């Protein structure tokens, strides 16, 4: 690795490390249910709107894609979201930011075999919010004004271990196990208008655990056409406080299909569609939370110019539409994302720096949320 690539990699890591300390704000749609679903996508796939997800060897969507790993690869990415939203009856809330580690992976071929492996971590569901609400409560015969603040900072993470191999030259097959973990710090407060009452303060550490398995296949009938399919079955998510279970939730079955066309060298169009049966969690949620099955369709284009030594700068564009799984009202919210990005190859192809910019709009349930997500990732081939 050259000095330049090493310094850039360190700088990118510094960007990611410096961001995990502060309390943050995630989507207003992440307050209900188990949280806001994450996207296990690499920077390249993210810049293509997620359309490349089912085929991308550095994304954690399809374990079969790991079979394309011909060398050891490590990839990390992080991003910052700038967001504002308007909710029914309230004025617009702006200036919200969140910075997280959404994704990281390490993988490569297992020497002496036709099998490749990949270990990755990604955000399964984001559980970061901090909301303040006011109301009244009658205590000891007096009506008191109360101000509640409910904060959660954390996420459910998905640690995946995948194996894939190539039984035939045009077929990749893979399987993976998923360990769900992570935690969130809950900070719950109620302040009373009468100072005779001490504030109610509860700080708890909510720990998550769960398991899942997934399997997939990638077919390449011709050089211009690729097909992919993957299924993922997750079990129950358990939440614990201090070792005691405080609830479980049934997680969905996810079915994903993809089509990728490469009509000419340097031009690629990929589409991925996913269905998740989130409604299986309904029985485990409270009566005011509605869980919906979701569809997600993403499509993206990648144009790669011919540079010296194969280091041409690509242009990536994409769009994604998805339904969101949880709402406190009967209306299912949706999200539309327009994405773009690029990247550069460094150190004679031994490192790459990719970035993506996403413009998202979420709506439904009486609110509308818009914002930008800027992300960058480093891929290193040691």
């Amino acid at each position, binding site marked *: 690795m050259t000095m330049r690539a090493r*310094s*850039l990699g360190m*700088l*990118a890591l510094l*960007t990611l490390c*410096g*961001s995990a300390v*502060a*309390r943050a*704000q995630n989507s207003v749609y992440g307050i*209900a249910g188990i949280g806001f679903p994450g996207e296990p996508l690499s920077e390249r796939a993210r810049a293509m709107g997620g359309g490349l997800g089912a085929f991308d060897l550095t994304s954690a969507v399809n374990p079969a894609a790991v079979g394309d790993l011909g060398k050891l690869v490590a990839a990390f990415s992080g991003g*910052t979201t700038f967001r504002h939203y308007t*909710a*029914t*009856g*309230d004025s617009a*809330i702006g*200036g*919200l*930011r969140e*910075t997280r580690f959404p994704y990281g992976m390490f993988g490569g071929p297992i020497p002496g075999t036709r099998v490749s492996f990949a270990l990755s971590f990604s955000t399964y569901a984001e559980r970061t919010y*901090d*909301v*303040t*609400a006011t109301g009244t*409560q009658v*205590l*000891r015969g007096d009506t008191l004004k109360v101000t*509640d603040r*409910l904060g*959660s900072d954390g996420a459910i993470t998905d640690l995946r271990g995948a194996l894939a191999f190539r039984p035939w030259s045009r077929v990749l097959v893979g399987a993976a196990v998923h360990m769900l973990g992570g935690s969130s710090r*809950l900070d*719950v407060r*109620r302040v*009373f208008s009468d100072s*005779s*009452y*001490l504030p*109610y*303060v*509860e700080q*708890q550490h*909510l720990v998550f655990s769960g398991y899942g398995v997934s399997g997939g296949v990638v077919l390449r009938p011709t050089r211009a056409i690729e097909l992919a399919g993957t299924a993922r079955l997750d079990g129950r998510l358990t*939440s614990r*406080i201090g070792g005691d279970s*405080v*609830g479980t939730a049934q997680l969905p079955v996810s079915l994903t299909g993809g089509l990728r066309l490469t009509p000419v060298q340097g031009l690629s169009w990929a589409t991925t569609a996913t269905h998740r049966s989130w409604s299986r969690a309904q029985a485990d*949620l*409270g009566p*005011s*939370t509605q869980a919906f099955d979701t569809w997600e369709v993403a499509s993206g284009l990648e144009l790669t110019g011919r540079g010296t030594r194969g280091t041409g700068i690509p242009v990536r564009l994409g769009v994604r539409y998805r339904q969101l799984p949880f709402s*406190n009202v009967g209306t299912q919210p949706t999200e539309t994302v327009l994405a773009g990005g690029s990247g*550069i190859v*460094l150190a004679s192809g031994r490192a790459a*720096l990719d*970035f993506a910019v996403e413009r998202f709009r979420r709506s439904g*349930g*009486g*609110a509308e949320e818009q914002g930008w997500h800027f992300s*960058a990732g480093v891929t290193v081939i040691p």
Partner: protein
Amino acid sequence: MNAVRWMAFAAAGAAALACQDVVSVPGSCPEFCPESAIDVRDTLLSTVLASSIVPTDTGYLNSVAPQGSYTGYVLPHEAAQMQVVGPGSPVQARALMVFFRFAGNYVGGDTSVKDTILQTDSLRFTFNIVRRNANVTGVALALHEIPLDTDSSRTFADMDPYFQDSTLVATVQVPDTLVQGPVSVTLLPGALRHFVDDTLRSAIGLRIISTGPAFVSLGADTLNQPARMTRFVQLDSSTGTTRVTRSESEVLSFKTFVADTASVPAPASLRVGGTSGARVFIKLNVPTQLVDSMVVVRASLLIPPPAPVPGAPGDTFSLRVLPLGTDFGPKSPLADSTYGGYAKVAVGSADTVVLDLTRAFLLWRSNAVMPHTVMLGMVRSEEAGSVDAFDLPDQGSPANRAILRITYGMPFRPGR
């Protein structure tokens, strides 16, 4: 190369932005609020009808169980105040004060004069009133000369002979507008039989003269400015050519007050305060779950007095409640005063006294081994400094007993 630099700057910019996340936003409930809610409840702990101080295997039958009343922490002659209560009250009290001896010569430290006293012109007594009933007018303090060997063993009856007309040396009129502040009286040296060249000391007893029940509380420690005696003398100037006047003061070598409590009925249960500065220890039988698992936001000890609060008519006092650090009887150490609560009590009132115990629950939650026992007493500055007292009700009486009122939040459970 330019692209690399641009990306490096972008990464540095992102790092700078990463630490500026917004903290909290208004929630739009119920659509965009967490499903779980804070559940705050209020309860009274007075469920068991039983005799008061009968321990059982599991604790005390009542939620509030008095353990005992103890005295001796502060004695009247150590108190920060002393109270004089006049006739017409259920309790009468008189102050006794002995002043330090003046020196035979002038020790004022003034080098412009000689130290030989040529003549004592007058003596002035100054008393600092810290509290009195402002509704009573025409109050006067009568100064009587009492024995120089007066000590803490003297009782009201012992001292009664010294409060006759024959021992009266002066009276001080308390201005009707004065509630707090000094009053003074000036005497000729011959007015005091004890203040002669051999002794140069004085001992004064104070009683109240008033048309109605009245009291005066006097400062008795440094903080409350105790009484002082000032001597005005004539001296020669250092050159010996001019006669000048100077003054010097002495403070109290001993002070106390004595009360005639014979007419005060004995309490039905335990008594807090009074001239003995009694403290009562109370064991609270609080469910462990309430202390350990709930978030207590307010806790109050409600004590209905069994009869109008005894004491000096028109007086008020501050009752304090403080958890014990450990519980091994009368000498148990108290917890830090920040965990205590206070209540103002009016003499003669029959209103329920509400003492705040909220911070005591904070202490007990943070330290599981601490006993749930509290001390009830006068605030330190008033302890053993007045005739005021507070009686606890008999816990055997279901209609009139102390109870605990606790407002608490249930443990927060996400998704519930």
